[in-house]
């Protein structure tokens, strides 16, 4: 027999109570781990959708463009595209032009932001273009093909294949118009996208402002988002010769999405905290009951020559055993739940028929978790720590009694 053996035996002294406490702790660990992994998976999905349709994992702009969105702040970016693509871990670089313009049909006109893209590159990444058939895609960078939002199409009262005119301010301040044909229609389900999106080849867009080869944004897609920081540093080094151009993270380029995720994560953490707090109170109650029931026995143990500190250590060891056991069971259950949420997920389509939008990004109605073993371990250890913390008061209380006081208990 040793102290661990004694702790184990004491733990099962009241089998039912221990099982209930163990289940409560393990269940809370499972809940927090699975919920966290689900949130992480959903956030990763959102970020992925966001960066594909938006700024990329890293975005490159002319200085001050991000704050002002001044269409005059463009730069010659096409050489940079090939340079950046040589960096290990960069999957794709998407050049884009954003031009405030007026779209006019023979019947209606609407203010829009025209997006000039590299059709071939963009189609591999952009979720709005990915769903389009080959016949609906912009054929080349300088073609007159346009992909247009379904709602804008209705508002302009035109149909697929029909023409419309786009007018924007030329670089010298005069107005310049281009005739475009509706090649494809995007129906994302998001009002602002379907009501304002017009995409054309970047060379056709550049004609509107009279600056061929210019871009407002280079959206850098990474093959492994986990390497964002190191690749960001390499791009910044590469841009050293272009002091007027800056590379920013997606969080800075898309603050709405970043803040929405931060806010949601903060509220999740608060819920986790409440769950863990409730469990801690339960553990304190169990351990305190277990200690109060054994006051006489503790008196005997002290009489036999145990120091109060040794007695406290015995109680803490019991709590540690309980915590470790619960952490193991909880993590197994958490892994099982995560496995289900990763492979099957939760389909919200039946519950929420309309398009799900969060932070300005459409996300998949099937919520899927992602594996975060480091975080799962952290939560498990955190709960073990909380169990030890919960045992502190009962242990101190037990260590304070004298042998005679203890042995008077019945």
């Amino acid at each position, binding site marked *: *027999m*040793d*102290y661990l053996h*004694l702790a184990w*035996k*004491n733990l*099962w*002294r009241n089998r039912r109570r221990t099982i209930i406490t163990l289940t409560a702790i393990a269940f809370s660990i499972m809940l927090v781990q699975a919920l966290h992994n689900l949130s992480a998976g959903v956030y990763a999905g959102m970020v992925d959708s966001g960066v594909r349709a938006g700024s990329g994992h890293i975005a490159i702009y002319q200085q001050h463009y991000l704050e002002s969105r001044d269409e005059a702040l463009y730069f010659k970016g096409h050489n940079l595209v090939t340079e950046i693509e040589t960096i290990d871990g960069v999957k794709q670089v998407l050049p884009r032009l954003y031009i405030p313009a007026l779209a006019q049909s023979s019947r209606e006109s609407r203010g829009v932001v025209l997006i000039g893209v590299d059709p071939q590159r963009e189609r591999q990444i952009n979720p709005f273009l990915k769903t389009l058939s080959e016949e609906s895609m912009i054929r080349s960078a300088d073609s007159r093909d346009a992909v247009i939002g379904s709602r804008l199409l209705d508002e302009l009262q035109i149909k697929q294949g029909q023409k419309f005119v786009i007018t924007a301010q030329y670089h010298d301040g005069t107005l310049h118009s281009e005739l475009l044909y509706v090649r494809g229609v995007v129906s994302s389900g998001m009002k602002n996208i379907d009501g304002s999106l017009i995409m054309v080849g970047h060379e056709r867009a550049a004609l509107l402002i009279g600056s061929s080869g210019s871009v407002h944004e280079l959206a850098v897609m990474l093959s492994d988002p986990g390497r964002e920081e190191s690749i960001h540093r390499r791009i910044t080094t590469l841009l050293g010769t272009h002091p007027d151009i800056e590379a920013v993270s997606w969080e800075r380029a898309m603050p709405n999405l970043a803040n929405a995720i931060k806010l949601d994560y903060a509220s999740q953490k608060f819920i986790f905290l409440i769950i863990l707090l409730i469990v801690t109170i339960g553990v304190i109650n169990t351990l305190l009951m277990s200690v109060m029931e054994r006051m*006489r*026995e503790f008196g*005997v*143990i*002290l*009489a*036999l*020559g*145990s*120091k*109060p500190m*040794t007695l406290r250590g015995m109680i803490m060891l019991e709590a540690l055993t309980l915590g470790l056991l619960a952490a193991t069971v909880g993590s197994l259950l958490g892994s099982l739940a995560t496995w289900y949420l990763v492979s099957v997920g939760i389909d919200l389509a039946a519950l929420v028929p309309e398009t799900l939008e969060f932070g300005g990004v459409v996300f998949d109605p099937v919520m899927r978790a992602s594996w975060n073993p480091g975080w799962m371990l952290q939560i498990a250890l955190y709960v073990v720590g909380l169990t030890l913390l919960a045992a502190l008061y009962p242990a101190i209380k037990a260590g304070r009694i*004298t*042998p*005679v006081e203890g*042995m008077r208990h019945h």
Partner: protein
Amino acid sequence: MSLIKLKNVSKIYRLGSQKIPALTDLSLVFDVGEFVVLAGPSGSGKTTALNLIGCLDRPTAGQVIIGDLDLQSASSRQLADFRLQHIGFIFQSYNLIPVLTAAENAEFTLMLQKVPKQIRRQRVSKLFAELGIDGLEGRRPADLSGGQQQRVAIARAMAAEPHVILADEPTANLDSHTAEELLELMRRLNREKGTTFIFSSHDDRVISQARRVIRLEDGHLAADITITA
């Protein structure tokens, strides 16, 4: 050779504002190898005296000296250490730890003393044989009779080879036959190992077995009789 000295010891318990004297001006000396009974009716101060001798409590006045340890000046830690190394306890209601087996209970003080597992096993096994409870090592206290439990308690008290064993009404919960057997066993241990035994009891059967009877009445020493064979 004197082992334990009580000099003008008084112990007063407080119950709210009320002071209850449990021992008054008690002076006693116990020698090595004695087999002593503290006798007297309930409330006479037997348990209080045993608690003081066992370093479980401190006197309100007077001096308790055990070996070279003065109770008044010793810290709680020193007292715990002293109990662990030098004193064995046998309680009226056995007070075995219910989740442990008989052998594990007997080993308990040795575990506190950090004695290696193998030595503990050997020592307990030998004691169980001497006490006639070999074969019961794996049983839990709930599966043992009162007499068997008290033998395990004696094994626990003896395992650490203390100088003194204090027994508070050790036969009170036992039938007369078992009580006789246990008393004979303790006398044998006292004879063979030279361990000092101090009992508290108001049972005449126990008192008749003692070589020295200290009678307490209302916390005072009423008589201190040494019986010569």
